[in-house]
């Protein structure tokens, strides 16, 4: 059995790594269970690992690449003593203190836990969708855009993520159809203006994808107009889906309070229903979902955890009574 940590952070996006920076500077020697490689947003660094230019994160006049920003966060926390475990938490037990967390067969124990497991992109949920991943269906535009040079492709969704992908993909594809189930976009005005001004982007309004055509590889999409009910086929050899997110909270089912959509419920800052367990970032936020708000709530979680640890009677070894942040 391992030593008892003051704090373990699960997740390593902007929320988890900001919590790590603050916890490390409070001498809490945080361990970050950072996740495992994948080609979805469920990977070390989180959703920003799959994005290109981030233009709205304060402090970067000319913007910054998502992976580069997360690498900076990670190094900054390491500089103050944060440690990383490149693995996924597989089980937690918050019923007794210290809390137990498992990574495969290894049990880790901590006096407090900060959950920043974020959210992952939804897929369409169509029958042959998974089989076609790697054969036209992609979960990572920045990885796979290259393979669609000269192709006609489609992006599903109407938010900033969808338009960012569509604009990125126009570097390669001849034509990008953005398929949206409504007749207006949710995306920010600046992204809408860029997309409307791009001659390679065409919008298909009020429509959803009802079928993926092709067996060995994607050949087209069957679309259904939600207003008229009419179906039509669209030729496309590539499909990128950006229709929203679901929180990564299956690990905490039955132990932490969640809303109907599965987001963790927090109160009084970042507290969950279990004393000593805190949550920050997209795992508890379906409203703002920005890198900067995730980072801000990660900072809050670290401060909440530190103050809560200080208030506990037992023998944990924080020396200072307050930290000069």
């Amino acid at each position, binding site marked *: 059995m391992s030593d008892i940590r003051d704090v373990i952070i699960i997740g390593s996006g902007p929320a988890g790594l900001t919590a790590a920076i603050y916890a490390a500077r409070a001498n809490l020697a945080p361990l970050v269970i950072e996740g*495992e*490689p*994948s*080609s*979805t947003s469920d*990977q*070390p*660094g989180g959703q920003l*690992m*799959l994005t290109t230019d981030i233009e709205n994160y304060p402090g970067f006049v000319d913007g910054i690449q998502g*992976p580069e920003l997360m690498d900076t966060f990670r190094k900054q926390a390491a500089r103050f003593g944060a440690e990383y475990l*490149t*693995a*996924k938490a597989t089980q937690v037990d918050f019923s007794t203190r210290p809390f137990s967390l498992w990574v*495969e067969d290894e049990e880790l124990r901590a006096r407090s836990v900060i959950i920043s497991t974020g959210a992952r992109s939804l897929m369409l949920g169509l029958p042959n969708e998974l089989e076609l*991943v*790697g*054969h*036209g269906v*992609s*979960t*990572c535009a*920045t*990885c*796979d855009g*290259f*393979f*669609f040079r000269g192709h006609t492709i489609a992006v599903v969704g109407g938010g900033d993520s969808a338009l960012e992908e569509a604009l990125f993909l126009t570097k390669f594809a001849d034509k990008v159809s953005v398929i949206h189930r409504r007749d207006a976009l949710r995306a920010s005005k600046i992204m809408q203006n860029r997309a409307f001004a791009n001659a390679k982007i065409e919008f298909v309004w009020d429509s959803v994808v009802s079928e993926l055509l092709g067996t060995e*590889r994607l050949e087209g999409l069957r679309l259904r107009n939600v207003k008229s009910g009419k179906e039509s086929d669209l030729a496309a050899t*590539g499909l990128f889906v950006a229709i929203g997110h679901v929180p990564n909270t299956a690990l905490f089912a039955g132990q932490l309070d969640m809303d109907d959509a599965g987001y963790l419920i927090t109160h009084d800052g970042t507290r969950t229903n279990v004393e000593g367990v805190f949550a920050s970032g997209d795992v508890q936020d379906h409203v703002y979902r920005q890198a900067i708000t995730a980072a801000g709530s990660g900072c809050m979680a670290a401060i909440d955890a530190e103050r809560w640890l200080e208030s506990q009677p037992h023998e944990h070894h924080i020396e200072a009574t307050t930290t000069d942040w």
Partner: protein
Amino acid sequence: MAEGITTLTDATFDEEVKGSEEPILVDFWADWCGPCKLIAPILEELATEYGGKLRIGKLDVDDNPAVTGRFSVMSIPTLILFKDGDVATRLVGAKGKNQLRQEIEAFL
């Protein structure tokens, strides 16, 4: 590059893969691909771990369109395990070390 890892190109692919006595796991990658970077150190560890039983090959899709096209790679990283020169299994997307181990061990 770590021991047990071979850089493959359009020119050397057939000779290296068809002529390989051990199974060879070929990583189709490119330097702009974030998830490819995440699995690079894992592949180096696997090369050491399975030394003598498995070879690892790396093919940069940017410079080697012929082999990339021949295997219809449209997403990276894609890992294809070749045994006796034939495709034994194909893994699309980055994965953790344990999962990779499980996926390839059946073929070793």
